[in-house]
C-alpha cells in the first residue's frame, strides 16, 4: 500500500499530498516529463473546486492519450486533433458539466488547428489545456509546428530552418486575434514558481467555465527531456532559456478582453 494514503496524526498539517482526483497508479511518462505535472495540476484544481464528479475530460492523441488512466474523472477519447469538437458536443449536450480538453502541441497546433480556431471563435464554454513541449513526443520526437528555430528533431536533424520549415506558431497570440475567447494565458513548468502560476491559471479557467464565461485556453510550456535530448534538469533550463524567449509568458486575454 502506498504511504501517501496513511492517516495523519492530529497535530500534523498536510502541506502537500497527492490529489484525490489523481488515480493511485504510477504514470507511463518518461522521467521528468511535464505531462505528469500538468495532470497533477488539473487534479488539484478539480479537488479545490470540488467538481471531480461533474467533470468530463477529452483526451487527445499523443503522449497524453492515457490521461484516462490517471485522472479520476470521466474522460472521452477523441480522434487526432478533434478534441475541441468532441468537447463542444459534450458541453452542448450536458451544459451543467465541466468539460475540458487536454492536448499536446502536435494535436492542437498541427492536425487540430482548424478545430481549435473554430471552437475558440464560437466561444464554446470549454477549457483547453494545451501542453506545449515543442516536439511530437509519442511518435519519436519529430518536428512540431511549435518547434523552435534551430531546434534539432528527428525530422529536422540540422535544426529547424525557418526558410523551408516556417517559424514556431504562437497559439495564444493567434487566438487572441479572435473576439470570442474569454481567457488565454501562457505559463511554463520551469520551476516551482512557474508551476504555482500554472495552477492559478488553471483555477481561473475552470472557475470561469463554472460561471459560464466561455472559452479559455491555458498553454503550458512543458519539458520533454527525451526528445529535447537533455537531462530533466537541462530540459527545465531549456524551457527557461530557449522556449520562454520564443513563447513569452503572460495573460493574453482576461475577462474576454485582450490584455495590452
Amino acid at each position, binding site marked *: 500500500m502506498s504511504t501517501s494514503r496513511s492517516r495523519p496524526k492530529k*497535530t500534523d498539517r*498536510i502541506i502537500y499530498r497527492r490529489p484525490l482526483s489523481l488515480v493511485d497508479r*504510477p504514470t507511463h511518462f518518461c522521467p521528468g*516529463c511535464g505531462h505528469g505535472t500538468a495532470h497533477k495540476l488539473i487534479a488539484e484544481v478539480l479537488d479545490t473546486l470540488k467538481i471531480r464528479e461533474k467533470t468530463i475530460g477529452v483526451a487527445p492523441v499523443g503522449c497524453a492519450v492515457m490521461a484516462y488512466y490517471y485522472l479520476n474523472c470521466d474522460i472521452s477519447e477523441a480522434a487526432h486533433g478533434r478534441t475541441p469538437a468532441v468537447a463542444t458536443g459534450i458541453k452542448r449536450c450536458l451544459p451543467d458539466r465541466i468539460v475540458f480538453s487536454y492536448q499536446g502541441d502536435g494535436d492542437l497546433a498541427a492536425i487540430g488547428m482548424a478545430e481549435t480556431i473554430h471552437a475558440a471563435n464560437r466561444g464554446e464554454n470549454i477549457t483547453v489545456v494545451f501542453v506545449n513541449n515543442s516536439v511530437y513526443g509519442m511518435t519519436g520526437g519529430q518536428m512540431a509546428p511549435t518547434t523552435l528555430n534551430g531546434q534539432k528533431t528527428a525530422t529536422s536533424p540540422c535544426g529547424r530552418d525557418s526558410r523551408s520549415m516556417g517559424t514556431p506558431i504562437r497559439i495564444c497570440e493567434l487566438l487572441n486575434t479572435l473576439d470570442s475567447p474569454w481567457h488565454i494565458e501562457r505559463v511554463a513548468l520551469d520551476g516551482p514558481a512557474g508551476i504555482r502560476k500554472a495552477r492559478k491559471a488553471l483555477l481561473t479557467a475552470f472557475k470561469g467555465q463554472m460561471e459560464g464565461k466561455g472559452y479559455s485556453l491555458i498553454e503550458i510550456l512543458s519539458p520533454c527531456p527525451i526528445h529535447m535530448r537533455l537531462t530533466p534538469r537541462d530540459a527545465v533550463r531549456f524551457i527557461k532559456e530557449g522556449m520562454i524567449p520564443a513563447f513569452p509568458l503572460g495573460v493574453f486575454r482576461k475577462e474576454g478582453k485582450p490584455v495590452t
Partner: protein
Amino acid sequence: MKARTYTVRIDRNRCKGCELCISVCPRQVLELSGEINPRGYHFTRAANPSSCIGCANCSDMCPDTAIELREEMNRHA
C-alpha cells in the same frame, strides 16, 4: 514551546529519479539513493530531513506526485 518539523515522504515505487526535486530544494534535503526501485529507477530519499523548511518546492516540482509533505507541531520540543 512549539517547534515545527517537516516530514518529506517519498513514494519510492513511484519515483523515476528525474532529480527535479533535488534541483529545486533550497536546503539540500534530498539526494538520489544508490538503491533501485522495482521499476529500475534510482529513487530520491530524504538525506537531511531535519533541514527541511516545508517550502513545498519538491512536491510541486515532482512530475510523478511521489512526494508528500507534512508539518508536525512538537509542543515540548
